[in-house]
């Protein structure tokens, strides 16, 4: 049986080889890695660094700069709650408090059953449909308690 680390490195190599011909390929590669693994495993950093002739530290610096890249897997669902001004004006504070209470977790946390990761987001461009959220890439507007209860039940299925 292969060592898990070797497997990760092999899968990363395929992605790196596929994308390294792009101009400025690092972000597309990191998006590709996160899409493949659900996060950016630390084992992939030397593979990327080697291929792009960068130091591990440089790649690490880029990964940690951007909010999107995770260093550990997220839950099965990712729920992003908008906390920016337009949603604030429509009660996003209450939305955040309510969903935290329903799921029993805070922002940047994952429920113990691995069902859902809760994150704040600063604007989804749904500012005329506030307060807004995004569940696994699907936009949801005009959130009220009923909608939040539905979401909370749906992610646990």
């Amino acid at each position, binding site marked *: 049986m292969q060592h898990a680390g070797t497997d990760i490195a092999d899968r990363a190599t395929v992605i790196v080889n596929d994308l390294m011909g792009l101009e400025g390929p690092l972000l597309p590669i990191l998006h590709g890695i996160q899409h493949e693994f659900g996060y950016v495993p630390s084992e992939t950093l030397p593979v990327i660094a080697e291929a792009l002739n960068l130091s591990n530290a440089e790649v690490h610096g880029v990964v940690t700069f*951007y909010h999107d890249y995770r260093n550990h897997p997220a839950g099965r669902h990712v729920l992003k709650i908008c906390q920016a*001004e337009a*949603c604030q004006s429509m009660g996003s504070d209450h939305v955040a408090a309510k969903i935290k209470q329903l799921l029993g977790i805070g922002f940047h946390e994952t429920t113990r059953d691995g069902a859902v990761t809760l994150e704040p987001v*600063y604007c989804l461009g*749904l*500012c*005329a449909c*506030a307060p807004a959220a995004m569940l696994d890439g699907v*936009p949801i507007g005009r959130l009220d308690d009923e909608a939040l209860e539905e979401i909370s039940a749906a992610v646990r299925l």
Partner: protein
Amino acid sequence: MTVTIYIPGDSGALALGAEKVARAVAGEIQGRGLDARIVRNGSRGLYWLEPMVEVETETGRVAYGPVKASDVVALFDAGLASGGSHPLSLGNPEDIPFLKRQTRLTFARCGVVAPLSLNDYQSHGGLAGLRKAVGMTPADVVQTVTESGLRGRGGAGFPTGIKWKTVLDTAADRKYIVCNADEGDSATFADRMIMEGDPFVLIEGMTIAGLATGATKGFVYIRSEYPHAIAVMTAAVDIARKAGILGTTVLGSPNAFDIEIRSGAGAYVCGEETSLLNSLEGKRGVVRAKPPLPAIQGLFGKPTVINNVISLASVPVILDKGPEHYKDFGMGRSRGTIPVQIAGNVKHGGLFEAAFGMTLGELVDDIGGGTATGRPVKAVQVGGPLGAYFPRELFDTPFDYEAFAGKDGLIGHAGITVFDDSADMLKQARFAMEFCAIESCGKCTPCRIGSTRGVETLDKLAAGIEPDKQIALVTDLCNTMKYGSLCALGGFTPYPVMSALTHFPQDFAPKPMQEAAE
């Protein structure tokens, strides 16, 4: 004849249930054996009426909204397929006052056409601008854009033609057009709407920019929070390439131009142009010091036009109808139209494209219809998280770059967030500092450290600890951030903070005094 039913696939409409409506409509078409097809158009931007379903009839379009999936059976019973009357009928959408009062130049097709249909695009005037540009010299194209008076719609308001001229005049073996689609400001969604609803207009605008400056490669940097816009733009670029609009011979001319779609990774600061360039290059999205200007040394050190989505999407109509036509709209040095986005706690939220010069009060009270909650408007923030809070006393300010600057504010990307009287302006000021701290790239000290000190100082103020001292400190801190920061993130965070403090001092007064006053 096959009936066409339009159901928006725009993210805003999807957020309000358009997908369920589309499924229900498809079910009714099949169940009733109707000869009808569904087109997923963009949004017209009347979000309080979304999902807004339109049907093409012999006498023009008839709209219904806001439609819920549970309304669909009744709508078909009422004869939706032939424009039948129903309590949700809105009549001809173009006659809805919110739309009728607009001047749609940039958004002429948005919400009307099938976004990925090149036929629709061309039958509604698309590609006319590019066809003209192909027959002109680069200098003439640049001159046309300069004469139109178009200024950067991303927020800085820098004349687009001058930027293009610098790139045209800078010799290099390779030049780039970069479209800044990192629309991170709260209350703004114009870029998203146009990318989802009329993607070819952006492709056409970028291609014209390429011809005008000698650039052969374009990038659209779209924020990752916009997965639908990324999908539509990616598909549109592919279609444009197959149709010969992009590629080695643009519309059969000897000019080459191609476009690549790139996704951001959740950093607000990458909406700042130099930080965006670093991000495209695969680096941390850290701001660069200027000079050198991106027009001289931009992406990969090459001359680069970096423009906002709306600036580029406004170029085709300028080339098509001529600079005078565009320039005739507007006031002072703010020429043409601006897509104002009315958002937050507002009754009629949406996109309102109009000539510069409308007052803030008209936009909020008249067009927007006041707050959604029905309470009095307390404040509006114009220009996103870095824009100033305006009280009702300043509602006579006309929408114009200079007029807003004269009132210590900014238009920015033209988003307006409405707040009712339950808003706590000290809390809003604190959020501005907190947001700056979360999103700071960390390169310059006033922004990196100032924002965190700002949060602490405002917390002390809220706790009633030596209030006069805290106000003096936060004022001084804002002055340092405004003049000492490298880019607009640190430099403009003082706008919301100081405007809140200046216009709403009662919210910053110590709590016991507030109670005594009441």
